[in-house]
């Protein structure tokens, strides 16, 4: 990972009330790369995206984007920084009272003074890039899950962001939509010269499209590497995750009291 870093996360700690989520994580996202952040449910992946977006503040450490510490920015500075970011939410988060066209045009209308004719051309170009130019007149409720995710992707890149964040972009998609969305993440990143962070559980799809992978467990980075390094890794956690094994460093059972005691079973019965 030699390229210049767009995002630097150093010694970041974060807790919800007294429950620690991140305990000193260090990650680097170089410019132009697609990075995956993986880990079990509740390991703090989405929290990490919220820290990068400035929605949360770390209790220790910092997130730096293009040299600026996010949690030290004032409201105006944060909003200026966010105009250079795009985020795809888990289920798209399309505005349900607006058509597909208006969803994609939303940021252009809010942040620029472009005439409506130019906005129209830009919206159609963005929708064409995700293969959904013909849906511009539809409402979000009329779209399938995969289509909604692609429209949300078009909206995310509406203003050509430098940093694109994806929160579980593959969740709940059929294999075809999953592959389409995966390829779009890669191609849009390369076309825009952006940097992408993909938070996901989907190991196989991610290994196909990303440049580098971080694994998070128990609030720390437990493994990292290129897709080839991850595939050949013999670290127990990575092996369990990549091969989807039921038991390993991540236990199948949530911590609980003695099973026999819970069932009121006495020895010998």
């Amino acid at each position, binding site marked *: 990972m030699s390229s210049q870093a767009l995002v630097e996360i150093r010694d970041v700690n974060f807790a919800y009330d007294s429950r620690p989520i991140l305990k000193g994580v260090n990650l680097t996202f170089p410019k132009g790369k697609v990075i995956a952040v993986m880990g079990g449910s509740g390991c703090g992946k989405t929290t990490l995206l919220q820290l990068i977006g400035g*929605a949360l503040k770390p209790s220790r450490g910092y997130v730096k984007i293009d040299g600026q510490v996010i949690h030290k920015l004032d409201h105006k500075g944060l909003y200026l920084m966010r105009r250079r970011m795009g985020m795809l939410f888990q289920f798209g988060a399309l505005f349900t009272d607006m058509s597909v066209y208006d969803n994609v045009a939303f940021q252009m209308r*809010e942040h620029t003074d472009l005439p409506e004719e130019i906005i129209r051309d830009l919206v159609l170009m963005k929708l064409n890039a995700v293969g959904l130019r013909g849906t511009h007149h539809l409402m979000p409720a009329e779209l399938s899950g995969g289509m909604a995710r692609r429209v949300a992707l078009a909206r995310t890149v509406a203003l050509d962001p430098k940093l694109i964040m994806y929160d579980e972009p593959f969740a709940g998609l059929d294999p075809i939509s999953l592959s389409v969305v995966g390829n779009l993440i890669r191609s849009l990143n390369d076309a825009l010269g952006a940097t992408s962070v993909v938070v996901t559980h989907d190991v196989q799809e991610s290994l196909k499209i990303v440049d580098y992978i971080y694994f998070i467990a128990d609030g720390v980075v437990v493994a990292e590497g290129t897709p080839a390094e991850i595939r050949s890794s013999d670290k127990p956690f990575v092996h369990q995750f990549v091969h989807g094994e039921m038991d390993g460093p991540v236990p199948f059972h949530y911590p609980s009291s003695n099973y026999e005691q819970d069932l009121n079973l006495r020895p010998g019965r």
Partner: protein
Amino acid sequence: MTTVENLRFLGRRIVNAVWRIGYASRFFIMILFYSGTSFRRFHLTIKELFSSGVMSLIIILVAGTFVGMVLGLQGYETLKRYGAESALGSLVALSLVRELGPVLAALLFASRAGSAMTAEIGLMKATEQISAMEMMAISPMARLVAPRFWAGVISMPLLSALFSAMGVFGGYVVGVVLIGVDQGSFWSQMQAGVDFQHDIVNGMIKSFVFGVAVTAIALFEGYDAPPTAEGVSGATTRTVVESSLTILFLDFILTAFMFQGGVV
């Protein structure tokens, strides 16, 4: 539970209540702070005026007519005992513009438009639409909340006026057309009995205050709703209950200030 646990529970409830009042006050100040957009881009407010004001017209007009008709019937029955049927117009109009118009229109507005506002904002939060807007560097307070607030504040006095107007019409239909009270007495008594400044303006002030209260409560409950189906339904219920109680409480306070000269 032991006494200490009871005290701890009570203390926690009080702290939570104080915290919530503080949060709601901050929310209200934020609405005012971000209100510039609602007037600079007035089309956003007009869109909300349609959904909260125009879409409430049917229930307001129909309810106003029936309330006026009931007032006509009951008023006639009471006034007849004293041989004062001719004062029916005055009684109907004063009841409506001073009290029933602002209060009932506000209660109906809270049930119809307030609950819709809460559900809409709550669902937008639950489906991450508000977070998406934040991440686009667009303030949800300026873009979503403030236009809805001002739409509610503007539409409430207008709806209240329409409620009263339809009520007077309903009273006229029952009193003059059906029962046969003299038409000239009905209108002249009304004209003589209703003072523009004292009755109509004060009624409008009441409905403006109710509009501020109902809309602020509805928006706060939606914005503060837990992002679950149960959370949104609970917030919608709270909007109707809190708004109704607030309207009745504020009505008592405002009436005490506005009309005390006539009562005491």
